[in-house]
C-alpha cells in the first residue's frame, strides 16, 4: 500500500474521534468561552456588548474566598483519601486470592446512586442522626455534635465518594511492587514502618500522584456534596457556578468561573505531568 493511501486511510479512521472531540468537547468549550465575554441578559442568557467584566469580577474577595475554600476542601479530601486509601490498597494487594473480591467491594458503591449515598450521610451526620443519637444514648455527649452543614461534613462526603479513585491506582502500583525489596529492607535492619516509609512509599509515588489527581480534580469542581452536606454554609466553586446559571441568571459570570477553574486545573496537571516525565501518571 502506498504512502498516500495509507495517510488517507489514517484520516478516515481518525475522523470519528475528531468528530467526537469537536462536537462534545471543543464546541461546548467555545460556546462557554463566547458566553464568558458577553453581558448578562435581563432574564438569563446573554446579550451584547462584549466585555471582560465577568473576569474582573472574579477578583472580588467574596469569590476568592469561595475559590480558596474549594482548594482547601479538595486538598483536605485528597489527603483524607490518601490516608485511608493507602492502607486499604496495601491490604488488598497483600490479600492473595481474595484480591478480586475486595476490589469489587471497593467498586460496589458505584452501583447505587451518588445522590442516594450522599443523602445517607445526611442521615448519619445530622443532629438527630445515627451518630449523634447513639452518642447521646450512650451518655457520651449531652448536646448533639455539629457534624452536618460545615466543611468537615463536605470533606467526609467527598472522601467517601472519591476513595475508590485513590485506591485503584495505589493498588495497581502496590501490586507490582517486588516483594523481595521488602525482604531486603528488613534484611538490612529496617523495621516494617521504616521499610514502608523508605521503600514502599517512594516506589508508589506514581500511584500516589495518579490517585491524588483523580481525587483532587473532581473534588475541586464538586457541587452536589457541598450542596447537600455543606447546606449553603460551605459553598464551593461548583455551587457558585451552578448558582450563576440558575437563580442568579448570570451566564457570562458562570462561564468565566468555569473557564478559570478549568485553567487552574490544567496548569496544575501540566506541572505534575512535567515532574512525572517517566510516564508514571495513569
Amino acid at each position, binding site marked *: 500500500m502506498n504512502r498516500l493511501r495509507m495517510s488517507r486511510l489514517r484520516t478516515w479512521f481518525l475522523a470519528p474521534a475528531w468528530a467526537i472531540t469537536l462536537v462534545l468537547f471543543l464546541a461546548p468549550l467555545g460556546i462557554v468561552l463566547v458566553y464568558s465575554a458577553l453581558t448578562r441578559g435581563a432574564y438569563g442568557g446573554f446579550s451584547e456588548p462584549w466585555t471582560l467584566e465577568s473576569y474582573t469580577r472574579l477578583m472580588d474577595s467574596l469569590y476568592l474566598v469561595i475559590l480558596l475554600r474549594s482548594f482547601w476542601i479538595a486538598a483536605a479530601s485528597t489527603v483524607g483519601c490518601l490516608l485511608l486509601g493507602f492502607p486499604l490498597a496495601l491490604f488488598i494487594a497483600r490479600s492473595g486470592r481474595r484480591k478480586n473480591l475486595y476490589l469489587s467491594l471497593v467498586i460496589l458503591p458505584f452501583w447505587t446512586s451518588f445522590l442516594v449515598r450522599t443523602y445517607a450521610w445526611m442521615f448519619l451526620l445530622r443532629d438527630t442522626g445515627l451518630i449523634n443519637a447513639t452518642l447521646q444514648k450512650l451518655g457520651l455527649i449531652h448536646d448533639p455534635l455539629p457534624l452536618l452543614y460545615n466543611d468537615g461534613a463536605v470533606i467526609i462526603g467527598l472522601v467517601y465518594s472519591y476513595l475508590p479513585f485513590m485506591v485503584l491506582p495505589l493498588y495497581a502500583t502496590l501490586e507490582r511492587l*517486588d516483594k*523481595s*525489596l521488602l*525482604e*531486603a*529492607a*528488613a*534484611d*538490612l*535492619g*529496617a*523495621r516494617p514502618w*521504616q521499610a514502608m516509609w*523508605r*521503600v514502599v512509599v*517512594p*516506589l508508589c509515588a506514581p500511584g500516589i500522584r495518579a490517585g491524588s489527581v483523580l481525587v483532587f480534580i473532581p473534588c475541586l469542581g464538586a457541587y452536589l456534596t457541598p450542596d447537600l452536606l455543606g447546606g449553603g454554609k460551605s459553598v464551593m466553586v461548583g455551587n457558585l457556578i451552578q448558582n450563576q446559571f440558575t437563580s442568579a441568571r448570570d451566564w457570562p459570570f458562570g462561564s468565566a468561573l468555569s473557564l478559570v477553574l478549568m485553567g487552574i486545573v490544567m496548569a496544575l496537571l501540566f506541572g505534575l505531568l512535567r515532574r512525572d516525565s517517566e510516564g508514571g501518571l495513569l
Partner: protein
Amino acid sequence: MDAVLELIQISKHFGAQRSVDRVSLQIQRGEFFSLLGPSGCGKTTTLRMVAGFEEPTSGEIRLNGQSIQHLKPYQRNVSTVFQNYALFPHLTVQQNIEFGLRRTGAADIAKRVREMLELVQLTGKESRLPTQISGGEKQRVALARSLVMAPDVLLLDEPLSALDPNLRKQLRGELKSLQRRVGITFLFVTHDKEEALSLSDRIGLMHKGVLEQVGTPEDIYLRPRTRFVASFLGAMNWFGPVGVRPEAVRISNETAANGVVQQSTFLGNCVQIGALLDDGRSILAETSRLAGSLAPGQRAHFWWHPADELTFE
C-alpha cells in the same frame, strides 16, 4: 571448633510437603559453605529460614550460640544477597549501600561506604541508579550493601545465576577472593555443582529436603555417600551397586577388545566415548589422550582400576 551458625534439626513444612526435613548443620567462622542441590531440594528455604523470611516448623537455629529462629529478619545479624539482587530502584548505588548503615546510626557511614565501594570496585558509580549499571555491577552493589553491615554470616541465594556464563566465571573468582579478604562466613546456595566445587570450603548437598552429605569438595566428589550425590556431581556408569566415573574408564588397544565404540564426541578438553561392551552393558568414558582414533564401530578394551569403583548398598 568455632561454629558461627548451627542448624539443629530444622524442618519446614508447607502443608503436607516437607520442603526441609530435619537438617542439622554447623558452619565454621570464616568458612565458605555451599548448599548445593537441584531446584526444589529445600536449599533456598533453608537459607530463608536463616535470614528470617521463613519460620522453621520445628528445630533450632543458633547464631553465635544464641537461638535466633524466633527473631525478625531485622533483628538478626545476617545479611542476604538476593537472586535478583533486590536493589532499591529509587536509590543510587551509594544510597543502596548506605541503607542499612543509616539505621544503625554509625558515625563513620561515609568512610565505610567509600571503603566498600573500593572493595567491590564501584568507585565512580556512586550516583548511578540500579537501572544504569550492568548485571555484574548490580551483583557487586548487592554484595557491598550486605557486606557493609559486617554480618556474622552472609547469605547468598544463587547470586551468579542471573549473569551470562563468561561473567559468571569471572565473578566466581572475584567472589572467592572477596570472601578471603573480608573473612566473613559465606553461606552460598547454588544448583551449579561446578560453582559449589570450585568455591567452597565445604559443601552440603541437599535432595528432597534432606541433607544427603556434608564434606569438602574432594570428599563429596570422590567419596559420595549416596547414589544421588554421586550422580548429581557428575556422570556415572552404574554396574549394579558399583559406580565408575567416565574419566576413570581407560581405553586401550593392547589387550583383547571387550567392547565396540558407538559414538565419539569431542568436548574440547576431552573426548567422550560411548561404547557397548560385549556383555551387553553400555559404558561412558572420557579420555584426553587417545591411542589412535576411536571411530564408531571400532573395537577396544575398556577397563578401570578397582580403586576407582564407588560402591553403594
